[in-house]
């Protein structure tokens, strides 16, 4: 594409990567690295002597586990949900590492900006909270508690029940996946737009265009900082929504 004599790549250039070997490209590599990084952090943290004051990687592990226990599990599921902490910690770190590659030089592609990873994770979360609901309440009473919220006048149930059914079983996984995917894709596109604009202005050739590159460049620096915030926030939101769904399946409203 060419606008005002500046060249812009097609969107497929930004998201579709050549295979490193058959059916394994950069996005898959980032996913694998995210899993390994999560495992390495906790294995290393576990090897330190627990009697000494924590340092380095153990600090990271302790702070994050404490944060997820205190701010996510206890607030949404309650005391009996503490068994879910490992699951939620793994989700948090996997999503975070998949997101943060967005701003790491040489990677610069959030793995979550391809729909496959958010969709798979949303599917896993969907399976988990439905299984928990069926296990804790039994199939029919889970279905009844999900579709018939208490405190609604009888006649309104004809309207409320289908809406609740659709929103619990269909919209939830969709919105979970799309929220993560669209946020990261939007961030990636913004970064790419300003990076390419800076580059195109520097190499424009027309003398009066070159100094303008300062504007998109500052925007690029600002957005890079902003995307760090977004990466953490989206990992947090994905984790807390998972916890909320599991909490809702464990303790129905009475």
């Amino acid at each position, binding site marked *: *594409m060419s*606008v005002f004599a500046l060249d812009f790549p097609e*969107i*497929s250039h930004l998201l579709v990567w050549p295979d490193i070997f058959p059916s394994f490209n950069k996005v898959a590599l980032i996913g694998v690295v995210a899993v390994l990084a999560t495992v390495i952090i906790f294995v290393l943290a576990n090897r330190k002597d627990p009697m000494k004051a924590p340092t380095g990687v153990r600090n990271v592990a302790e702070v994050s586990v404490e944060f997820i226990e205190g*701010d*996510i599990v206890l*607030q*949404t599921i309650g005391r009996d949900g503490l068994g879910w902490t490992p699951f939620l910690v793994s989700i948090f770190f996997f999503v975070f590492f998949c997101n943060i590659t967005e701003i790491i030089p040489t990677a610069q592609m959030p793995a979550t900006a391809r729909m496959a990873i958010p969709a798979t994770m949303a599917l896993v979360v969907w399976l988990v909270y439905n299984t928990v609901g069926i296990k804790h309440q039994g199939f029919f009473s889970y279905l009844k508690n999900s579709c018939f919220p208490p405190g609604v006048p009888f006649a309104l149930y004809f309207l409320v029940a289908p809406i609740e059914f659709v929103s619990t079983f269909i919209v939830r996984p969709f*919105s979970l996946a*799309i*929220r993560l*995917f*669209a*946020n990261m*894709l*939007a961030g990636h596109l913004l970064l790419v737009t300003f990076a390419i604009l800076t580059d195109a202005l520097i190499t424009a050739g027309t003398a009066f265009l070159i100094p303008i590159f300062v504007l998109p460049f500052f925007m690029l620096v600002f957005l890079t900082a902003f995307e760090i915030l977004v990466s953490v*926030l989206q990992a*947090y*939101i994905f984790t*807390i*929504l998972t916890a*909320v769904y599991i909490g809702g399946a464990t303790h129905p409203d009475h």
Partner: protein
Amino acid sequence: MEAVSILAQQFNPDEKNNQAAIGAGFAYGLAAIGPGIGIGYVVGKAIEAMARQPEAAGMVRTTMFLGIAFTEALALIGFVVFILLKFA
């Protein structure tokens, strides 16, 4: 509206792509209105609550992020429609 389509024609002589591009622009613009107002309300009320009762700030913040996440989803669906219209 007329000006937009003329402007789009300058860059993109293909008629069908043109219409899709205009639709995509409007899809995102319209989808951003509601969530913009909604997130403003959510955060504004949360700040009010935190200012009145700073001890409850942690709980309010958790709930605020939840509210933002649900509201924001609408704008993001608009963004996905934008991508689909423009590039699919």
